[in-house]
C-alpha cells in the first residue's frame, strides 16, 4: 500500500519535473527569462525539499510555494521591473520582436510600381459555401502564375507574422505545384475565362475577382480570406525575384502590387540597427522607440519596444507638472478619505457599541445582527445599489423623491467634486461602521467591571468614566484595528471604481485623473483606461503604494505585537 503510494508520488514528481523543466526552458528560449527563472527555481526547491531528508518540513509547503512564486512573488517582481521601463501602449514588444516585425511584417513593405496585377481566387466549395482552401492566379505581364495557400514562415507565439509562397508559371494545362499536379480548365491565357482548377481529389471554383460583377458579390468571403491569410502573405516570382503582395489601392480596394521590403538590417557602429531601403537612411532609436525620417525630414514614430528608462517614471511624478498636480491632489484625497472613513465609522460604530453594551437591553443580539447587515451584504452589491438607486442624479430616489419632498434642491452627487467625495464617504462609512461596532463591542466587553465600580466609589461621573477609563482601554485594543482599517481603506479600489469610477475628472490633467480617485484607482486607470496604457508609470505608483501600505502594516504588527506572539512560543 505504502509502496504503491510512494511509486505514485514519485511518478507525479517526475511528471512535475518534466513539465516545469520543459516550461522553464521553453520560456527562457522565448526570452521570458524572469518567469523561466522563477519556474526553474521553484523546481530546484521542490526537488531539494523532497530529496533532502533534512528539508522534510518544507515538503508540505510545496504546493503553497508554487502558487506563492507564480501569483505573488513573480507579480511583485514584475511590478518592480515594470516600474523602471516604458512598458505600455506602443511599447509592448521586446527589441528583438520589433526587429522581426520591421523585417517581416507585410505592413512594412512599399509598392514598387503603381501597376496593380490582375488576380483571381479559386476555392473549394463545400455544401454550397466556400471553404478556406484556396488557390490564387495572378496575371503578370500577360503571363499567368498560380499559387496555393502561402506557408507560414515567421511566427510569434501562435501569431503568424509572415506567409510566403512561390508563384508557378502556368505554361501548360497541367502544372505541378508543391509536388501536386494541378489542371487548369479551360487552359487559356485569359484570366476571366478560367472556370476551374482541379487536383486529384479537389476542385477549385472561382470565388473572387475584381471588376467581375458576378464574383465581386463574394467580397465578404474574400475579406475573410484576406484577414486570415492574404494580409500576411507574400508571393515570390522566382524568375526575377520580385515579390507581390496585397495592398489597399487608392480606391480603397485590395489589389496585388509588386512590393519590396521597407526595412533591412544594418550596423551602426557595432550596434545592430535598421535601414530604410526607400530613403536609404537608418532609423533613429530613442527611448525604446524607432523613428523614421521621411523625404521632408519629419520624424515619424514607427514602432516601440519595452526599454529600461531608469527612474524616469518616478521623477515624472515630481517633475512633470501636469502629472504631479493631479498626483498630489489624489494623494491628499486618499489620506483624507481613509482618515475620515476610519474616524466617522469608528465614532458611529462605537456609539452603537456603547448602546448595545448594556446587558439589560432586551434583544441586543438581534439588534447587533441587524446592524451587522451592511457589512454582511457583498459590498459590490451595496455599492451598486447606492450608486444606481440612491445617488443617481436623474433617477436616484434622493434627487427624485427625498430632496424635493423636503423642499431642497437636487445635488450633483457625482459631477460636483465636493459632493462626489461626500458620496464616497457616506457609502464607505455605511459599509464599515458595523465592523467598528463589532470590534468595539468585543473590546468593551473585555473591560473589567471592577474598574467602573472603583471609579464610582471615587465619585467619577459618567462622562469622566467614559473618557478616563473606557476610551483609553478601548483604544489600546482597537488602535491596531483602526490602523489596518486605514490601510484597507487606503486601497479600497472596488468601492471607488464602482461608485464614482474616480469622477468627476480633474480638468487639465494629462493623465486620466479624477477628483475622487484614490492612488490605487489612479493606477488602474493609468494601466487600463485613458488614451494609452501606461503600465510603467502605473507600476511606479504601485510601488509607492506598496511602501506606504507596507510601512503602515509593519507599524501595525509592531504595535499589536504579532511578531512577539510567534517568538514567544
Amino acid at each position, binding site marked *: 500500500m*505504502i509502496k504503491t503510494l510512494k511509486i505514485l508520488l514519485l511518478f507525479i514528481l517526475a511528471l512535475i519535473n518534466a513539465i516545469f523543466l520543459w516550461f522553464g526552458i521553453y520560456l527562457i528560449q522565448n526570452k521570458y527569462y524572469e518567469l523561466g527563472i522563477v519556474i526553474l527555481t521553484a523546481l530546484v526547491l521542490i526537488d531539494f525539499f523532497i530529496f533532502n531528508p533534512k528539508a522534510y518540513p518544507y515538503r508540505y509547503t510545496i504546493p503553497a510555494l508554487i502558487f506563492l512564486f507564480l*501569483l505573488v512573488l513573480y507579480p511583485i517582481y514584475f*511590478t518592480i521591473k515594470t516600474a523602471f521601463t516604458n512598458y505600455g501602449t506602443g511599447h509592448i514588444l521586446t527589441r528583438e520582436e520589433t526587429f522581426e516585425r520591421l523585417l517581416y511584417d507585410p505592413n512594412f513593405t512599399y509598392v514598387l510600381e503603381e501597376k496593380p496585377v490582375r488576380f483571381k481566387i479559386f476555392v473549394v466549395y463545400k455544401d*454550397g459555401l466556400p471553404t478556406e482552401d484556396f488557390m490564387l492566379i495572378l496575371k503578370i505581364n500577360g503571363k499567368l502564375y498560380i499559387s496555393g495557400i502561402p506557408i507560414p514562415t515567421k511566427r510569434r507565439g501562435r501569431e503568424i507574422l509572415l506567409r510566403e509562397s512561390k508563384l508557378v508559371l502556368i505554361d501548360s494545362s497541367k502544372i505541378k505545384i508543391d509536388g501536386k499536379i494541378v489542371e487548369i480548365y479551360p487552359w487559356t491565357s485569359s484570366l476571366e475565362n478560367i472556370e476551374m482548377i482541379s487536383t486529384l481529389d479537389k476542385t477549385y471554383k472561382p470565388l473572387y475577382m475584381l471588376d467581375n460583377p458576378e464574383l465581386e458579390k463574394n467580397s465578404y468571403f474574400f475579406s475573410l480570406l484576406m484577414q486570415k491569410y492574404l494580409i500576411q502573405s507574400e508571393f515570390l516570382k522566382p524568375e526575377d525575384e520580385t515579390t507581390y503582395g496585397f495592398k489597399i489601392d487608392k480606391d480603397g480596394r485590395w489589389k496585388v502590387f509588386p512590393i519590396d521590403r521597407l526595412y533591412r538590417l544594418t550596423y551602426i557602429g557595432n550596434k545592430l540597427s535598421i535601414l530604410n531601403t526607400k530613403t536609404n537612411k537608418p532609423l533613429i532609436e530613442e527611448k525604446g522607440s524607432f523613428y523614421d525620417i521621411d523625404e521632408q525630414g519629419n520624424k515619424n514614430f514607427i514602432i516601440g519596444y519595452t526599454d529600461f528608462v531608469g527612474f524616469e517614471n518616478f521623477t515624472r511624478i515630481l517633475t512633470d507638472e501636469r502629472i504631479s498636480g493631479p498626483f498630489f491632489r489624489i494623494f491628499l484625497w486618499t489620506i483624507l478619505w481613509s482618515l475620515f472613513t476610519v474616524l466617522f465609522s469608528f465614532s458611529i460604530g462605537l456609539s452603537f457599541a456603547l448602546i448595545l453594551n448594556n446587558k439589560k437591553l432586551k434583544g441586543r443580539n438581534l439588534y447587533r445582527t*441587524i446592524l451587522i447587515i451592511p457589512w454582511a451584504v457583498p459590498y459590490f*452589491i451595496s455599492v451598486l445599489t447606492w450608486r444606481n438607486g440612491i445617488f443617481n442624479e436623474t433617477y436616484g430616489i434622493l434627487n427624485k423623491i427625498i430632496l424635493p419632498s423636503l423642499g431642497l434642491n437636487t445635488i450633483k452627487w457625482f459631477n460636483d467634486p465636493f459632493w462626489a467625495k461626500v458620496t464616497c464617504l457616506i457609502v464607505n462609512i455605511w459599509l464599515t461602521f458595523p465592523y467598528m461596532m463589532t470590534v468595539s463591542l468585543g473590546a468593551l466587553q473585555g473591560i473589567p467591571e471592577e474598574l467602573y465600580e472603583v471609579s464610582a466609589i471615587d465619585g467619577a461621573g459618567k462622562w469622566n468614566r467614559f473618557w478616563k477609563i473606557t476610551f483609553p482601554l478601548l483604544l489600546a485594543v482597537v488602535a491596531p484595528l483602526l490602523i489596518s482599517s486605514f490601510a484597507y481603506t487606503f486601497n479600497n479600489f472596488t468601492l471607488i*471604481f464602482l461608485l464614482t469610477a474616480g469622477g468627476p475628472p480633474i480638468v487639465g490633467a494629462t493623465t486620466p485623473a479624477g477628483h475622487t480617485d484614490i492612488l490605487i484607482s489612479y493606477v488602474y486607470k493609468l494601466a487600463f483606461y485613458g488614451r494609452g496604457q501606461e503600465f510603467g508609470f502605473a507600476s511606479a505608483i504601485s510601488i509607492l503604494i*506598496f511602501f506606504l501600505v507596507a510601512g503602515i502594516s509593519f507599524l501595525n504588527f509592531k504595535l499589536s505585537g504579532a511578531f512577539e506572539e510567534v517568538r514567544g512560543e
Partner: protein
Amino acid sequence: MVGEGRRSYLTHIFLWIIIPLILFPIIWIVSTSIRRDQAAFSTRLFSSRLTLQNYIDLLTPEKNMPVLIQELQNLISRTPPYNEWDLPKIEKLINEDIDSIDKYLKETQDRYRNSKESFNKINIYLIQKKGEIKDKNIKNLENLLNFINKKLPKEGSYFRKEKNINESNLIKREYTFIQDKILNIYITFNKEISSELDKILKDIKGNINLASFSDYPKNIKNLVDKLDKYPDLHYVSNKLRNILKLMDQKKDKRIFYDTEKLCLKISYLIEELEKNISILKEKENKLALLNQKNEFLEMQEILGGQEQKEELEEHKTKYDELKTLIKDIDEKINIINTSDNLETIISEFSAIEERLTEFISDYIFNYGRDEIVSKIEEVAGKLRWFQEYNTLLEKYNIFSKNIEDIFEKSRIYLSEFISNWRSLLETSIKGEFVTSSSLDNFYNLIKMDYVNLVAPNLNVVSKKAGDLMDLIPYKEMNGNLDRIDGELFRIDQIWKQKTKHYFLNWVRNSILVAGFAAIITTIVCSVAAYPFSRMRFWGRRYGIMTLLLIQMFPSAVYMIAIYSLLNLLGRFVPFLGLDTLTGLTFVYLGGIAYNMYIIKGFYDTIPDSLEESAMIDGATRFQTFYKIVIPLARPILAVVIILTFMNVFNEFIFASIILQDAKKYTYAIGLWTFSTGPYLTEWGLFTAAALLGMLPMTILFLSLQKYIVSGLTKGAVKG
C-alpha cells in the same frame, strides 16, 4: 429602577427609528425587486403593484413572442447551431414554436378580453353612480367657492369698481342668456305652434273630429289677448283669431281634442315669456345702476390719484385671479349640471382639477401658501382621480383599437407561415439561404406596431390603473383596476422584446470559480500549515508573518502583472489565458497566507499526544497528519472553504480585467453590467439579481460572523 426602564425604552425607540434608516438600501432592494411598475421612473418610494416577474426573467426566462419568432426564422434559415440539426428535430421545434405562438396569441386575447370586461364594469358602475359623483363633487366645489368668496381679499374703492364691472359683466351675460331664451320662445311660436295651428284650421274647415270642450274659445280668446301684447307674435295670434272666427261661423262650440294641448303649451310659453321679459327688465335696471356707480367711482379715482391704485395692485391681481378661478369653475359646474353624459362629466371634472392645480402652483409661486390654497389643494386632491380616469379611458380606447389590429395581422402572418414553412425549410435544407417573409412581417409587427402603438398606451393604462387604485373613492372598483393592470402587464410580458442576459451563466460561473478556488486553496493551505504548527525548521518563526505582510499589499497592485502573466500563459496554455474561467480560478489561488494562518491556529489547539502515540505505533508523519489532524480539523476547514468561497464570490477587480465575454462573466461583473448602459433604469432586474446573490452570502456571513470577526481581529490583536 424606573428611570432605567424608561431609558431602555427610549433606546429601543431610538434603535427602531435608526435601523430602518440604516437598512434603507436593503429595504429598497427588496421592495424594488418585486415592483411591477418602472421603479426608476416612478415618483414613489414603494408601490402596491407587486410581481415576481423580475425573478422569473432572471431564473427561467420564458421564450416570449419576439424570441419565438426569431428562433423560427433562425430555424428556417438554418443559421448555427441549427445547421447541424437533422430535419425531424427542426420540424419538431418549429411545430412546438408555432404552438407556443398560437397559445400566446390566445392568452393575449383572453387577457385582453378580461381587461375589457373589467374596464366596462368600471364604466357601467360609474354611469350608475353618475348622479352621486356629480352631486358630491359639485357640492365640494361649491363649498370651496363659497369659502374662497368669503376669504376674498378686502376690496378697496378701486376694487369696488372692479367688482362692479365684474358684476355688470355677469349680468350682461345673464341678460344675453335670457334674451336667447326669449328668442327661442319666439321661434317655437312662429314655427312649431303656427304650423299646428294651420293644421287645426284645415281640420275645422273640413269638419273633422270635433271635440266637445265648449269653454275653449274663451281660453283661446284670452290667449289671443295676451299674444297681442307682443308684436312679433301677431302671426300666431292672427291664426288663433281665425280659428275662433271659423268656430263662430260653424256655430259649433266643439274643438279638436289636441287643441287643448296646444292651448296649454301656448299659455305656458306665454307665461315663460312674460317671466323672462320681467327678469330682463330687472337686469337692465341693475346694469344701468352699476354703470352709474362705476362712472362715479372712476371720477373719484381720477381725483384721488394713483397712490391707492398701486397699493392695491397686488390685491387686485390676487382678487382677480381668484375671481376668474371662481368664474371658470362656475362655468364648468354649469356644464356638468346640464350634462348627463359620463364622459363629459369626467372630462369637465378633470379640467377643473387641472385648472385648480395650475392655479395652486401659480398662486404659491406668486403669493406663498395660505389657507385658501391649502383648501383648494384639498379639493383638487379629491378630484385627482378624474384626470387619471380620463387618461385611462382615452388610452385604453387607443390601446384596444391597436391591439385588435395586431391580433388580426398576427393571425394572418401565422397562418401564412403555417401554410408555407415546409416548403421554405425544404429549400433551406438544399443549401439556399431562405427567410420567411411572413415571419419578417410578424417580427416587424412586434418591433414597430407593438412597440410604437400598443406598448406606450398599454403602459399608461397599466400605470393609471395602479394609481387609480389609491385615488378612486370607490374602493369596490379596485378589484377591476387590479385586474386591468395585471392582465395588461402579462400581455406586455408576452410581447415585449426583452434584453438578453446570461444571469444563470454568471451565477454558475461564480459558483464554479469560487468553489474550485476555495477547495484548492483549502487543501493547499491545510497541508502547508501543518509543519508550521508541529515541526521546527528555518523560517518557521517569521514565515507566516512574512507571508501575511506580503499579502497585505493590495492585490490590486498586481493587476498589471497578473494581466501580463495570464496573457503570456494563454499563449502556451490556452486554458490559463485571459478571458477564461480556469485562468481566473488560477489567479484566485494566490490568497494563501491568511488561510494558512487561521488553519495553523487551529492545529495548535489539537494536542500533540494523539500524533505521538500514533507515531509510536509506526505511523509516518504524513499518515498522522491526514489520518488524525485533518479529521479533527474538519470544522475549521469547512469554515475556511466557506470564507474563501465568499471572498472569491465577492471579488470584482481581477474578474473585471480578466473576463471579457459576457457569457463568461461572474456574478459580480454581471451585476455590474446590470447597473450600467441599457440596464441603468431596469431597476427591477437589477434589484432582483442583487437580492438573489445577496441573500445566500448574507446568511452565510451572519452564520459565520464569529469566525470572520475573530479572524479579522486575530491579525492585529494579540491572543
